[in-house]
């Protein structure tokens, strides 16, 4: 139907416009870039409101489960008059029960909005302070738990395990375990700050850097695979949109865009200083 075909043409144009950046910065890319920034900012503003503020905040301050005619729900009904889509009749039914402690994030949120005015700019600091405090506590525990304790456990290797072969290419073996132990310890020592990396200590940290470099090479090699498959995904979609069902969108847009870019490159050759505005 029309929405799908028109959508296909829009998607094809935007796809080629982004790819044109590989050639050079040009008007097509600028259009796609600005559309993407504008649409995505609006997209997330709407998404956050309808998945956070309305269900999680208002849903906990005025849940439908405890709807009553008291003063508290009087305020709710007043809001309901302003916008019934945000504050539907009879409270918000998102399966929450009432948590008045959620007035705290509500207040911090209002303060954040008020920090727009220059005089009240420091209002934002309370919200920032809450965020940093929460981040410090949660991440400290989470990372210490999984990144440090979890990996210490993984590095405590069995030296006397009878059914482990001395060396094996695949699966565990004593040699492989020693490689992991030595690599982890020397790698950690590379991150030593309060000691000059010279003499024997320097040799040990050099071994550490070798392990780090192998690890960087490995994850880079791994990533190449992932990136190529994403490009495959884009071309598969472009091939789909080049079919008759979509009026050969891909072919038309490609020809027009290459033509225009070729023409402007031809003009630029005569007066090179007019860099595309």
């Amino acid at each position, binding site marked *: 139907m029309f929405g799908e075909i028109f959508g296909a043409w829009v998607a094809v144009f935007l796809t080629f416009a982004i790819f044109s950046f590989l050639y050079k910065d040009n008007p097509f890319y600028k259009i796609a870039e600005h559309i993407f920034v504008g649409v995505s900012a609006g997209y997330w503003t709407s998404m956050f409101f309808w998945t956070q503020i309305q269900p999680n905040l208002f849903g906990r301050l005025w849940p439908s489960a405890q709807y009553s005619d008291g003063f508290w729900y009087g305020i709710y009904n007043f809001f309901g008059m302003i916008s019934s889509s945000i504050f539907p009749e009879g409270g918000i039914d998102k399966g929450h029960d009432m948590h008045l402690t959620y007035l705290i994030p509500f207040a911090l949120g209002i303060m954040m909005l008020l920090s727009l005015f220059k005089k009240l700019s420091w209002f934002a*600091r309370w919200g920032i302070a809450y965020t940093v405090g929460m981040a410090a506590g949660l991440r400290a525990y989470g990372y210490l738990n999984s990144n440090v*304790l*979890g990996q210490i456990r993984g590095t*405590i290797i069995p030296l006397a395990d009878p059914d482990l072969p001395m060396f094996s290419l695949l699966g565990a073996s004593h040699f492989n375990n020693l490689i992991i132990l030595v690599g982890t*310890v020397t790698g950690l020592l590379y991150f030593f700050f*309060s000691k000059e990396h010279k003499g024997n200590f320097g040799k040990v940290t050099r071994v550490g850097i070798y392990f*780090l470099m192998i690890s960087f*090479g490995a994850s880079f090699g791994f990533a190449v695979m992932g990136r190529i498959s994403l490009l495959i995904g884009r071309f598969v979609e472009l091939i789909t949109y080049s079919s008759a069902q979509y009026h050969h969108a891909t072919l038309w847009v490609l020809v027009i865009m290459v033509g225009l870019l070729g023409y402007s490159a031809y003009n630029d050759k005569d007066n090179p200083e007019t860099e595309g505005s």
Partner: protein
Amino acid sequence: MNDRDFMISVGGISLAFLIYWFAGHPYFVTERLVMFLTIMIFSGTLMFYIRKARRGEDIFLRDIPGLKAIEEAVGRSTEMGKPVLYVPGIMDMDQVETVAGVIVLGHVSKMTARYETTLNVPVSRAIVMKAAQEACKESYLMEGRPDMFHDDMVHYLTDEQFAFAAGVNGIMVREKPAACLYMGKFYAESLILAETGNSIGAIQIAGTASQAQIPFFVTACDYTLIGEEFFAASAYLSQRPELIGGVKGQDMIKVIVIATILGGVLLRLLNDIGLINFNILQFLKVT
């Protein structure tokens, strides 16, 4: 080791905990005891060396090339009359790397104030925008150049990862900054920024603890602060004694970690051959 009151307070806390423990430790989540002890020991080590540094003890810190290059990069931008681009990651202040990125921005904006270089800070989250604006305003004030600071220096683009990358690409190829600094938490867009930065010939310095992105920054940027080096940046740049003491404390914690690993291997060996029946792996159970 002559920090008497520190030793007294450690003794006091340990005693209090022992009493609480043997009094039945109400409300305590017992299976997380190891994590609790780890946090107390590590925090104690940090505090000990921070106090030591505050008392004026001289602590040596090895060079981190990436951090020395920051001042050179700002200087180079000034000579070429081009802006400095600073990206504090794409995540929000609920990530410790983003907070560290904003703190490093505070130091960099002191440099740009001193050298009178234009600073461009595109951000991907609104709370980061507010925090970065406060940090820059403070730095320009402390360098006596409040006139040079204007709010639009720090500007919001979008929360969306790749729209942000597209927008920053646009800034790079049009304003052609001489130095690009990436300090914070990054995901796949890291290589898009680094490759575009390379194509305009900018000096690029990256600092992140995003494990998966370190290889890309290492290959595509001139300097990279790898994981822990990034967190030590604020100590190096501020040269404040208590922060340098904290870095020394971190080193000592690494010694404890390595000792635990090697000790653990030994204990496991003894346990496997039956000399002792204490299973270190069970003890370090992750919950």
